[in-house]
């Protein structure tokens, strides 16, 4: 689905990431960890085509991002649900319309399946906040709304960048449970986090691989957690 082959990325100056090779298999569950500033967000951006690698090749669903047009990348993003570190919404639209935004921009008729929408909002625990505007949401509610928005199009892959970054432990457990449920439904999941206790909590529920970025390279972390 997403393949990185000997990828490097540099923002100018030295390389932030080098010699990164990875194949995300369907249905796999990955954690991505590493110290702050190590390049976790950059790595995820390479995975959804927001950045073009400075060396090596990134393949999204069998297409090289270098040869993809801007529209190809936009279409590719419809198959990859991303939960951003700082989840942004359209502040003038209520939560339900924000969650449905991927369908709207894909040209779907006004999210015809209202029952489906209700179910999705109930699943992330936002049923009663459907008509609220994004600025009225708490940090945890924003993260869950972002997750609902990321999965509404039933993407093949879900990438989450520090989804529990600014929420309390109970809430991050809840979010993790949701991501694990998605993985059980066959979705590929990758979560970037520096929170090792979150990784430990997940390990008892799901077969997760832990990747660590250290010294600009991607390593498979073993049982040393």
């Amino acid at each position, binding site marked *: 689905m997403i393949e990185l082959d000997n990828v490097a990325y540099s923002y100018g100056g030295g390389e932030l990431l080098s010699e990164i090779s990875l194949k995300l298999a369907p249905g796999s569950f990955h954690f991505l960890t590493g110290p702050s500033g190590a390049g976790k967000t950059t790595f995820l951006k390479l995975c959804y085509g927001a950045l073009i690698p400075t060396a090596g090749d990134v393949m999204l669903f069998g297409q090289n991002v270098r040869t993809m047009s*801007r*529209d190809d990348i936009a279409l590719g*993003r419809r198959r990859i649900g*991303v939960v951003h570190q700082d989840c*942004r*919404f359209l*502040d003038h*639209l209520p939560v339900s319309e924000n969650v449905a935004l991927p369908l709207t*921009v894909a040209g779907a008729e006004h999210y015809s399946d209202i029952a489906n929408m209700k179910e999705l909002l109930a699943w992330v625990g936002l049923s009663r906040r459907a008509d609220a505007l994004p600025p009225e949401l708490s940090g945890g509610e924003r993260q869950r709304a972002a997750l609902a*928005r990321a999965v509404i199009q039933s993407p093949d892959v879900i990438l989450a960048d520090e989804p529990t970054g600014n929420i309390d432990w109970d809430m991050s457990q809840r979010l993790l449970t949701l991501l694990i449920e998605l993985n059980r439904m066959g979705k590929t999941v990758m979560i970037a986090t520096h929170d090792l206790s979150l990784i430990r909590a997940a390990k008892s529920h799901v077969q997760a691989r832990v990747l660590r970025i250290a010294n600009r390279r991607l390593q498979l972390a073993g049982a040393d957690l």
Partner: protein
Amino acid sequence: MKLDPSAALAFLAGDAQADRVVPPAGFTVRLTLFTSAAMAFLMVFALALSLAAGRLAATWSAELSQGATLRLSAPAEQMAAQTAAAIIVLQTTPGVASARALSADEQRALLAPWFGPDLPLEDLPVPQLIEITEERGGFDAEGLRLRLAAEVPGAVLDDHARWRKPLVRAANALRALGWVSILLIGAASAAMITLAANAALAANAQVIEVLRQVGATDGYIAQAFVRRFTLRALTGAAAGTIAGLIAVSLLPSAGAEASFLTGLGLRGWHWLLPFLIPPVLGAVAFWATGVAARTTLEGLS
């Protein structure tokens, strides 16, 4: 860009859902509307000026081709003989197509604006006028004057061309100026709408980023802005055009007597031309916003 009517209609009808993704902005909307209206208003006047100048040039050119007149002063008893002699001279001049003495009625009509209709022409020493129609190449005015001086001493040749030609040139220059003004107003509208669109795109940077993140194509995002600005420009231009037309129709009419100076208003089918202004300004807005949106979007990841 090809204009497919059904696609254009679908574009104007829009997608209510897509429209909602860009938040409504109050102040710039009114500025865009106002500027489009002002531009359309000015365009109506520039158009009226160009068309009037064109009419003026055409009228004067047409009269110019009629050429010249001969004015003959002679004692009443010799008038008929001298007129006949002058006509013979004229008919034997190369370049003169025809020469015809004006009848007493025609002369009275010419003088009526100055002396009133009841002028007893017979009692006054009014000169006889002879209308000369030139051939294409024209005639040698100086040679004709010399021959007339020898054979019909009371005749004076009045060559209209000499003083009308600069007027026709001036009218043509005025018309060109009018068209240049129309082009400048169009270009200024494009610049103004580009600035407004850029301001809107900058103000909505977060909206654009969110839309990109959830998989919106550039075309989708651009259209939300392009449609909005095209509709504003269309609406503003329509209002401005109507105001301009009302103003032009209130201009005093020159009337038949002064048709020589022609009114600045619009005539006949020319009244239909200003109705092209709103669609033209709409197309300008469509194009300008499209370019601005695509340029901005291509700078984003």
